[in-house]
């Protein structure tokens, strides 16, 4: 298994399809934490995230033969994770309604936030900042959360995010900007008085 750890994802897929079962184990181990974190953030429930992570990898395994090895495995599996999470939220009928969306799903506040100002330094001095950030992010629309997590937690490029979420590049950049603007607003509103 040590030899396989140095191989790129697409090579591991090729090896698995050629009958090398260990290659799949390496791929699962490689992406487990990322996918688990991603689904946990989107669905807001760690117990459910376990099931969603398992479902993501099972779906990936079932469709491995259809995977285009010229494309990125990373964006492909995150696309599966996103769809799995969204399906779960839809079944639960609890796609979090953001306070910032109207009934048509338009985020009017984000539309009006023209400029993304940097965060004031005092934010970083708060106690329990990690918890505040988690609560603030949970208030964002799911589609903004997905972009922000992939960008800042997983260091995806905007193109990789666009490929993972099946969205146009400009949409992804715009959602990132708007998501951060909303996040800033929420954090500023929670500033200790």
């Amino acid at each position: 298994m040590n030899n396989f750890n140095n191989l790129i994802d697409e090579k591991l897929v090729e090896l698995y399809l050629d009958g090398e079962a260990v290659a799949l184990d390496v791929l699962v181990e490689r992406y487990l934490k990322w996918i688990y974190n991603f689904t946990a953030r989107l669905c807001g429930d760690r117990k459910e995230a376990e099931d969603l992570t398992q479902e993501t990898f099972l779906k990936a395994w079932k469709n491995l033969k259809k995977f285009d090895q010229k494309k990125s495995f990373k964006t492909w599996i995150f696309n599966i994770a996103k769809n799995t999470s969204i399906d779960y939220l839809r079944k639960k009928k609890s796609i979090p309604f953001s306070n910032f969306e109207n009934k048509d799903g338009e985020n009017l506040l984000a539309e009006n936030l023209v400029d993304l100002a940097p965060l004031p330094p005092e934010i970083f001095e708060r106690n329990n900042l990690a918890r505040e950030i988690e609560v603030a992010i949970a208030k964002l629309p799911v589609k903004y959360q997905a972009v922000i997590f992939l960008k800042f937690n997983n260091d995806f490029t905007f193109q990789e995010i666009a490929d993972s979420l099946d969205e146009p590049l400009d949409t992804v950049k715009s959602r990132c900007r708007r998501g951060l603007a909303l996040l800033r607003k929420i954090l500023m509103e929670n500033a200790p008085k």
Partner: protein
Amino acid sequence: MDQNYEKLFGYLNEVEPPQNLLSKIILSVQRQEKFLLKKRCAFLLVGWMGSAALLFWAAQSVADGFIESGFLKFFALIFSDFKIIAVYWQSYFLSLSEALPTASLIVFFVSFLIFINFLKPLAKNVKIVFASARLRII
């Protein structure tokens, strides 16, 4: 701008997945693989048995065809009247080919191909099933 926000996300704790999640996922994939393997074996076994029955029927059909068409009697002339056959060999072989139960033969060869096409993957998959059963025992 991004660096400011990157610093913010640096405070966010990454959640560690449960320790048994990796083995749980791998086991569930293995379970699915075994289930699909058994399903494939069952399908191939049924297909193979059906093709074996078809092959048996086709073989009987060919045998009956050879007998009814008189091919065997024509063919036996090679041994009993070789000199005459040697003289009129063209007409002989023409008559012989006309007496061939062609349709039955085609059905027989097609059945045989189907039989082999089910047998090869069946043998391969059964071998995998036994190999994994042996590994479980070990």
